[in-house]
């Protein structure tokens, strides 16, 4: 076999349909989506965000970037010209999830064509699974992996089948030259509603088309500004220390665990923000942080006031999942891998936490500064040292 390309491989054993001509009926946007996007990403702090489908090293002109931002919340309705060969072609029934009916954390399925029309034999209908990571009105976030060209992809609920939840607005989000790995979605329900309205206003002759649009399922309700999510999620807090910020976990009403690198240097005073039904901000003090040389990237923050109304997580006894300590960076290329994380088992931290909570003694945490060599090796991404072969002499 040579390297010359052969005939295109059929998709799932069947040939692709010949592309069909289509006409543009209208362009539409969701005003609520645009408003939320402007509010969340429109200020100076948002300058580091990039929604372009290109790597951060690509120097797009200011005009190009502005154009991409303008188009981000816009979608298009097309009519495909009828084919003579297939007079009666129908697909499965589709419905649209009402805004707010899909809870945060619900599994989602994105189906799109990475790189657009490039090589559809391989890329058409690429599936990616994720969850509804967050929601602000019709602006939704998912961790389902989407690539450039996936703009406009349908994002569906895991069940029942055929429930359209959203369309991809921007498949790649960069911040500070690092890939965040979240995809921005626009909820489908307000888009379909906009289509109905637009057909009536702009194309009265085509108003009948509104009858074939997918129906809305579920009871629409007035959404809070942000979806509250599951109750246990409230234990996750934002920790701000000067210009540095990161996440933490409330392990007691006055105690937050975070990473050493989130509270660096001499800064010992930190601000902890908790997002329950109302936003709470409490000052805290770093009472312990492991040394730079320790592979346990851990810090303990004591709060000046108790975090009320937060379900404190119960540490597991036989489970080796813990707090996320660090993502991974390749220092040679500068690339960061946000999906490759080190975790510290809570079972390892629990004795020290209990000791500190009961007696105020930090001695248990200080043991984290003296990790054994095998743990140091793992932290440095080194291979375990083989036993030195014994000399036969």
């Amino acid at each position, binding site marked *: 076999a040579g390297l010359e390309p052969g005939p295109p491989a059929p998709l*799932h054993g069947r040939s*692709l*349909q*010949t*592309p*069909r*001509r*289509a*006409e*543009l009926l*209208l*362009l*539409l*946007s969701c005003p609520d989506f645009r408003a939320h996007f402007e509010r969340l990403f429109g200020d100076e702090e948002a300058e580091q965000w990039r929604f372009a489908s290109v790597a951060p090293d690509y120097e797009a002109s200011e005009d190009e970037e502005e154009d991409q931002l*303008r*188009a981000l919340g*816009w*979608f*298009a*309705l*097309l009519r*495909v010209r*009828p084919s003579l060969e*297939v007079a*009666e*072609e*129908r*697909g*499965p029934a*589709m419905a649209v999830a009402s805004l707010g009916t899909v809870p945060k954390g619900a599994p989602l*399925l994105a*189906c*799109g*064509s990475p790189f*657009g*029309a490039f090589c*559809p034999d391989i890329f*058409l209908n690429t*599936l990616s699974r994720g969850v509804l990571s967050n929601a602000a009105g019709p602006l939704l976030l998912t961790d389902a992996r989407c690539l450039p*060209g996936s*703009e*406009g*992809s*349908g994002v*569906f609920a*895991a*069940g029942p*089948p*055929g429930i*359209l939840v959203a369309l*991809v607005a921007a498949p790649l989000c960069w911040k500070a030259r690092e890939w965040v790995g979240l995809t921005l979605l626009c909820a489908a329900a307000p*888009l379909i509603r*906009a*289509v109905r309205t*637009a057909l009536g*206003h*702009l194309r009265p002759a085509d108003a009948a*088309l509104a009858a*074939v*649009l997918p129906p809305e399922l579920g009871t629409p309700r007035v959404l809070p500004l942000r979806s509250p999510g599951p109750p246990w999620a409230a234990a996750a807090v934002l920790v701000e220390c000067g210009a540095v910020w990161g996440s933490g976990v409330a392990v007691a009403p006055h105690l937050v665990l975070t990473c050493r690198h989130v509270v660096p240097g001499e800064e010992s005073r930190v601000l902890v923000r908790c997002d329950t039904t109302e936003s709470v901000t409490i000052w805290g003090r770093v009472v312990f942080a492991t040394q730079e040389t320790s592979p346990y990237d851990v810090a303990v923050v004591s709060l000046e006031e108790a975090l009320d109304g937060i379900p404190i997580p119960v540490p597991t006894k036989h489970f080796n999942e813990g707090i996320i300590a660090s993502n991974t960076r390749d220092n040679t290329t500068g690339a960061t891998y946000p999906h490759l994380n080190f975790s510290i088992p809570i079972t390892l931290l629990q004795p020290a936490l209990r000791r500190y909570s009961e007696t105020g003694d930090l001695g248990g945490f200080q043991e984290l500064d003296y990790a054994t060599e095998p743990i140091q090796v793992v932290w440095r991404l080194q291979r375990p040292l083989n036993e030195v072969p014994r000399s036969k002499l």
Partner: protein
Amino acid sequence: MGRQWRLAMRAAEQAGCVVSASRAKQPEAGSWSCSGVILSRNPGLVLCHGGIFLPFLRAGSETLATAEAIFLPGDSCGDDLRLQVQWAPTAAVGSNGLVDQGRPGLCTPQC
């Protein structure tokens, strides 16, 4: 969950398509493409991203930034806009959840 995922995946695949836009008089000028969702097959209605229409807007991309613009008619784009939609072959899902592969014209109990 396994069977539910399979059915959801099948439904998602059957709604997926790819949309290409090019200039009828200058195909060599390149094409713009994105993904889309088939909302209805008969008549064929597709919803896709609006970004690929930027180069074709008669009044320029500023049109999209207008605060009061919620929708724009199709003729906001130039006459030389040529659109193509491509999708995978239809495989209808029967009431038992099984898929009939490659038999054209089949449909769900009621689409």
